[in-house]
């Protein structure tokens, strides 16, 4: 490697780093040591204690401060003469527009979520700036290079959707611990301590199922002057006892399933719970509401221990009580937060009691917290390796050394003797709606879906747009922005609540609508297909977006024919998500690897289902299966960039 040549390639270049977390800290250090002299770094996060085991530029004394700023100061200590510009900001802020991106020679992502990655991908495409993308989970990691027109963009291959569970699995027929966690967190916790006006299936289902006219709200509302102990036991008996009895009465449900067991407080040995008066004094010691702890007052110490049903029941009642005694002001506004000890304790206990009822294995608080908070496995070494690989690719990109671009996988178990496996990048997917402006197709019931549903479930969730604008022909149906006239805002707000077929410019089967994001400078056309019925279990959105996946399968089939290969197991790369542990939905940490194996032949009509088998079981880092699919990697070369 011609070092002088590299140094000159590096020196004058301005690079943008997005993310100053696990990968970011390592990357900023390695860039600075490698001779980069003008680095801009964006991160909206502040430093947390659990970052310190790998984000080595940060110290205990920095907790609470801006990651980007502290990282800058730390690196300037050993490279005082370079320029590092920190931004404590969200990459999605409108300030970071295409013109901003155009100032850079290359953009390096060390991000923790799909949404931001897609956003950066679009801005890089619009600005014509190369992107080096990365992700790590435990011992696994990957680096990819995305250069417009030369390699595939980050979104050329559809990404795994965050794992969601059918509502009835959560409300009535849980079979895995994660189902109990979702129930405890998203339904019970939200119902008891969150915004009462939020739609909540717990509420709906319990009253529906009972078939009585009794308003469900009464059960969860603490009655005036109701003794807190009594209230806790009433909630307990209702959700773990009564609701299960009601569910059991629906015999069809249990023909092929194991019946759950109703649990009432009286069934559980709660001896010590009764003497809470003594505990109250201890509680008052806490000043920080986030450190109030039910397990501590009960005398449970080790978060790694799996509690018995009785212990879980005690924690449940104690936590509920502590919320009312110590944090009453917050009730009604609480959302689950993995750093909120009492919330984690409550959710762990509730999930475990429900798990007992359904014959599911109980879990420790440590494990439950990991699942509930989507806490991802992370170690320093993988981040350091990935950061090194990012810099190696970055230098190639700056030298325009296209034929040597590689995506590299960092593996836990060697595959063909390799721990670091370079793979030639794919060429752009000609039918990618992001980099090739290919139209998409949306199946939707235009007679009952509102524009709001379309905006939330498709434009934001699926297309990842930030500031969307929706047009039908020349008619503007919806738009987001700061500079809109008041009457337009009112107009758009009214449109949101209209059914598609009843919009001023109606959207019906056969309509082509244009969705645009002005910040991302992305436009895509969507062909609307009207469809009456959707399967509630498998198509819970009530709409299906398709297009670029099918086209991909066709394209690759052709490719393999050209090469005369009959066994075309072209593996597909899906990025690892979640380098960090932020607010993600239940997302399989291993989706990247587990989802990789993808036979073209199986894929012709699987726009959304090819990753459906990826579930929480893949979250375990010791899952050696995660690597199995790498066998097909040799074939990737057929898709060489020409």
């Amino acid at each position, binding site marked *: *490697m011609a070092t002088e040549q590299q140094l000159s390639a590096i020196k004058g270049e301005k690079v943008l780093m997005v993310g100053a977390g696990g990968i970011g800290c390592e990357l900023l*250090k390695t860039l600075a040591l490698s001779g980069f002299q003008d680095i801009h770094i964006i991160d909206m996060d502040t430093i947390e204690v*659990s970052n310190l085991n790998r984000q080595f530029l940060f110290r205990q004394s920095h907790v609470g401060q801006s990651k980007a700023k502290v990282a800058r100061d730390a*690196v300037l200590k050993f490279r005082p003469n370079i320029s590092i510009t920190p931004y404590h900001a969200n990459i999605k802020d409108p300030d970071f527009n295409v013109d901003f991106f155009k100032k850079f020679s290359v953009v390096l992502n060390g991000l923790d979520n799909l949404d931001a990655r897609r956003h950066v991908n679009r801005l890089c495409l619009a600005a014509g700036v190369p992107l080096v993308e990365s992700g790590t989970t*435990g011992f696994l990691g990957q680096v990819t290079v995305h250069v417009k027109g030369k390699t595939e963009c980050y979104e050329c291959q559809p990404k795994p959707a965050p794992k969601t569970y059918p509502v009835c699995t959560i409300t009535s027929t849980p079979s895995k611990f994660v189902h109990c966690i979702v129930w405890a967190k998203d339904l019970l916790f939200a119902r008891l301590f969150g915004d009462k006006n939020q739609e909540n299936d717990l509420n709906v289902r319990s009253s529906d199922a009972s078939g009585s006219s009794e308003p469900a709200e009464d059960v969860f509302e603490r009655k005036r002057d109701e003794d807190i102990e009594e209230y806790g036991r009433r909630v307990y008996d209702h959700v773990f006892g009564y609701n299960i009895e009601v569910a059991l009465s629906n015999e069809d449900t249990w023909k092929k399933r194991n019946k759950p067991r109703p649990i009432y407080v009286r069934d559980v040995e709660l001896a010590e719970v009764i003497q809470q008066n003594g505990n109250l004094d201890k509680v008052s010691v806490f000043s920080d509401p986030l450190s109030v702890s039910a397990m501590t007052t009960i005398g449970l110490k080790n*978060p790694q221990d799996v509690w018995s049903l009785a212990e879980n029941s005690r924690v449940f009642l104690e936590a509920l009580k502590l919320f009312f005694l110590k944090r009453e002001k917050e009730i009604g506004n609480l959302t689950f937060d993995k750093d909120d000890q009492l919330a984690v304790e409550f959710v762990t206990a509730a999930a475990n009691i429900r798990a007992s009822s359904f014959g599911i294995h109980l879990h420790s608080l440590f494990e439950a917290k990991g699942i509930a908070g989507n806490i991802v496995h992370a170690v320093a070494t*993988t981040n*350091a390796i990935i950061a090194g690989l990012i810099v190696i690719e970055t230098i190639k990109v700056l030298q325009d050394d296209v034929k040597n671009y590689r995506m590299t996988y960092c593996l836990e178990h060697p595959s063909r003797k390799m*721990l670091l496996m370079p793979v030639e990048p794919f060429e752009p997917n000609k039918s990618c709606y992001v980099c090739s402006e290919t139209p998409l197709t949306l199946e939707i019931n235009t007679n009952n879906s509102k524009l709001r549903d379309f905006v939330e479930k498709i434009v934001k969730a699926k297309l990842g747009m930030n500031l969307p604008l929706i047009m039908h022909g020349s008619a503007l149906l919806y738009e987001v922005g700061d500079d809109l006239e008041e009457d337009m805002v009112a107009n758009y707000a009214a449109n949101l609540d209209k059914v598609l077929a009843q919009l001023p410019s109606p959207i019906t089967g056969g309509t082509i609508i244009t969705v645009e994001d002005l910040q991302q400078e992305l436009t895509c056309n969507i062909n609307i297909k009207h469809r009456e019925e959707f399967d509630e279990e498998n198509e819970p959105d009530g709409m299906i977006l398709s297009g670029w996946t099918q086209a991909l399968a066709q394209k690759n089939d052709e490719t393999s024919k050209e090469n005369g290969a009959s066994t075309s197991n072209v593996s597909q790369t899906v990025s690892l998500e979640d380098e960090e542990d932020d607010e993600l939905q239940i997302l399989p940490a291993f989706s990247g690897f587990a989802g990789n194996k993808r036979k073209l032949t199986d894929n012709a009509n699987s726009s959304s289902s090819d990753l459906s088998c990826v579930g929480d079981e893949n979250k375990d880092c010791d899952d050696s299966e995660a690597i199995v699919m790498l066998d097909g990697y040799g074939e990737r070369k057929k898709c060489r960039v020409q």
Partner: protein
Amino acid sequence: MNGEELTEQETALYDRQIRVWGVDAQRRLSKSHILVSGLKGTVIEFCKNIILAGVGSLTLNDDRPVTDELLSANFLIPPDETVFGEKSLAELSCESLKDFNPMVRVSVQKGDLSSFGVDFFDKFDAVVVSCCSLNTKKSVNEKCRKSSKRVAFYTVDCRDSCGEIFVDLQDYTYSKTKMDKMTECKLQYPSFEEAIAIPWRSLPRRLSKLYFAMRVIERFEEYQGRMPGQTSAADLPNVLNLRKELCEAHSLSEHQAPDALIERLLSGTREFPPVCAVVGGILGQEVIKAISGKGDPLKNFFFFDAMDGKGIIEDIGKTNDDA
């Protein structure tokens, strides 16, 4: 649960990695003692990695004074001569490594690595050496082997944009879960001396060319009495002569150690920080595996070349004579 439990502070700090390797592994790490000698970029990366991982103690050995060259891939020491004083590379590095994790004891051991006896190495669970002569590598490896308990031995060196790691875990037993069943795995490692003494023609075919190139240069430096990395492109003719000799002695084609590769390794003496990060990361992972007893350890050479991007494991020890 055996042994002491992790403190609340440790649990909070190590939360994300306990989710990777478990509490028991974390506990074993926190009781382990590591020695490193030769503090160039790759070893500095390694030090950072295992301090963050939470080993019990790390002992640094490198009496060299600080030079610009030694700092080229060092992110611990500010390039400010006024703070260097009379301090050695190890002493200056120690000061900032301490900050990375207050729960790890970081200290300096002065002296020439080759002068330490078996009882010195006996104190450690893993010994990592870099930037030292072939003889020192061999003798330290032997001393680790003579210790009453197992002392894992590693060498690591980077030249140009390439890196090499050697691992000796002696007789190593670990358990792994396969299909929900725990199985015992036994590995037998050769020492560095044994491994490099294996006749080249009996090595696996398609072995990484870096292996041969590194052996040739290592020999060259030994004959010439040079410190590792004290080479330049001007040495190429002499090194190619030596290659010819060695290849003939081993009946191996000279193409197995190509000219271009040897030239790169001889002339690229400036450290390439991304390679330090990659190789120091892999080494960190390996030491963590060996100490925690979790995961398949690398056996027994690892090569990385930024030119082709491959990180390859080679098992050099199995010869045709092995039955």
